[in-house]
């Protein structure tokens, strides 16, 4: 019971806080706004409680009673913020426009039926393998066990010896911290906590993708994206693995969705920055994402609207990102300095690897092979996207063009950075590609789907949209 409280209270607090932060939003339809808000809030609740637990641990005050008191305080803060903003509606309600696609109910039915089938299979796998895959019990949940242990034992997870034990002490702590918080409150290390967390993040990704696309384009777009996500089997499997890649994919998606909705959501840029910083607290790749999204915002805005506007938007983005980014930087510098062999290679070795064409070919081949395995052959997500592209063609809303450019540039930079890591990795390249490439695709996939669906000419929900708001690619 205590464990359930420790799990769900921060989620509820996050929802209330997200409701307050999104007060005044103009996301239509209302149910999509509510789903968007819930997904963001639950994700934020996990991140905030993980950070709070880590700070309590640093202060030597992470006792079960204190953790529960902190959760209660978070809930009270959320309720207060909710109460303060409860009357702030998102502007006058607009009459719902008739959908242009009348088979949405059938798409919803197909999505629901497919989700039930796949969820049943994924739950069966998770039940049979409750401790998750290799990295779950050798890194993420293992570190959570240290953080949940009494006294100063948590320091073991950040010590140089932890590196010898393969625990990667410099990896950020969002997932391990949240799991440890619930474990410590409950007084045991039951596997239901990381299991449920994995499935929760899968649900959050689906809800956020669907609601963001419904708000930005149409219900048809949201449902069709859900069906393509349902076909992304390699991504879905992440829910059973209990790794940090699925949470990372959620925080990247949230940051990008908020950037795209920045015109409809007050403080959207700051919130986008906050979620980018949560990504940085989740995995090292998330730190790269936060930095590169900031740079992409600066560069695209500068080119489109001048330096002053670029600085202003980047400042608002960084205002939201700064607190948690500062924590991540302090963690990296003072608590668990990076011990990655990647950064300890000499210039000669790096140059030799960068100049070796065989490595480029090997990486390219592995990327194509892994892409093939990202789904089942005849319902492969790329096949489905190709069908949609051929039959519907493309359309980009003029008012989304700049944000789309920014986020596309950011994702491309992140992908290039990942490729760069493969090029210079000190590990055996074949092993490195085989063990990480599916997860790398998974990290970026929901964000890629969001961007692709914003370029597809799927029927709009609102026939009343002004022609002036539209552009043609």
């Amino acid at each position, binding site marked *: 019971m205590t464990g359930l409280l420790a799990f769900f209270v921060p989620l509820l607090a996050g929802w209330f806080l997200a409701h307050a932060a999104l007060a005044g939003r103009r996301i239509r339809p209302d149910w999509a706004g509510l789903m968007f808000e819930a997904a963001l809030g639950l994700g934020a609740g996990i991140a905030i409680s993980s950070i709070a637990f880590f700070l309590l641990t640093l202060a030597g005050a992470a006792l079960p009673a204190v953790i529960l008191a902190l959760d209660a305080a978070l809930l009270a803060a959320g309720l207060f913020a909710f109460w303060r903003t409860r009357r702030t509606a998102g502007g006058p309600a607009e009459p719902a426009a008739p959908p242009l696609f009348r088979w949405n109910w059938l798409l919803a039915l197909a999505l629901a039926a497919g989700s039930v089938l796949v969820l049943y299979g994924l739950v*069966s796998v998770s039940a049979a393998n409750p401790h998750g895959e290799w990295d779950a019990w050798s890194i993420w949940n293992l570190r959570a066990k240290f953080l949940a242990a009494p006294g100063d034992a948590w320091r073991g997870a950040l010590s140089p010896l932890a590196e010898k034990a393969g625990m990667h002490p410099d990896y950020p702590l969002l997932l391990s911290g949240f799991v440890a918080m619930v474990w410590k409150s409950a007084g045991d290390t039951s596997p239901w906590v990381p299991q449920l967390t994995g499935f929760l993040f899968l649900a959050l990704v689906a809800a956020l993708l669907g609601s963001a696309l419904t708000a930005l384009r149409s219900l048809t777009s949201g449902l069709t994206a859900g069906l393509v996500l349902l076909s992304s089997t390699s991504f879905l499997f992440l829910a059973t693995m209990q790794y940090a890649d699925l949470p990372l994919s959620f925080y990247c998606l949230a940051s990008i969705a908020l950037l795209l909705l920045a015109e409809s959501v007050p403080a959207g840029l700051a919130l986008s920055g906050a979620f980018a910083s949560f990504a940085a607290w989740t995995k090292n790749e998330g730190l790269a994402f936060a930095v590169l999204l900031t740079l992409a915002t600066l560069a695209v805005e500068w080119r489109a609207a001048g330096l002053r506007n670029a600085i202003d938007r980047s400042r608002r983005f960084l205002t939201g990102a700064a607190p948690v980014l500062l924590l991540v930087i302090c963690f990296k510098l003072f608590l668990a300095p990076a011990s990655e062999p990647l950064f300890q290679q000499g210039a000669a070795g790096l140059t030799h690897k960068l100049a070796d064409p065989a490595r480029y070919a090997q990486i390219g081949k592995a990327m194509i092979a892994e892409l093939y395995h990202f789904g089942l052959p005849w319902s492969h997500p790329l096949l489905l996207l190709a069908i949609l592209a051929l039959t519907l063609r493309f359309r980009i809303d003029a008012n989304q063009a700049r944000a789309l450019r920014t986020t596309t540039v950011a994702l491309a930079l992140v992908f290039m950075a990942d490729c760069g890591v493969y090029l210079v990795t000190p590990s055996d390249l074949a092993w490195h590609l085989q063990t990480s490439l599916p997860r790398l695709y998974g990290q970026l996939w929901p964000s890629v789907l969001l961007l692709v669906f914003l370029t597809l000419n799927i*029927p709009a929900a609102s026939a009343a949209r002004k022609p002036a708001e539209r552009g043609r690619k």
Partner: protein
Amino acid sequence: MAGIGVVAALAIFGALDYAQFLSEYSRSADQFQIAAQETRFREALAALPAAGIVGYVSDVPAGDPQAQAMLGAAQYALAPRIVVPLKSGDKADWVVGSFARPDEAPRVAAERGLSIVSDYANGVVLFRREPRR
């Protein structure tokens, strides 16, 4: 609009196919038997100090793919103790052994200067480092 219909049909049949695959896969999902390892190490866990460094020995050669999984499983079961493969200069007083062939434990103990504290009869053996003469 036909494209959306085709996508929906393919997605639903794909979901059916994937669900069947997952159902079959779930029968062999826990290939490292991590849940069983927690039970296997339970008695050793109770005998060890609550935290600190614990040495690790095994009869499975370090290069064997199984060796890494056995060490990882021991580490997960014994956390928050840090389990490190025993080397001559290490300070660990307590050493845990995970053996594929339990009758190898006395030989390993003799080679490494260890004394057997408990043999739990499931391949897990608890050692102490013998005082240096």
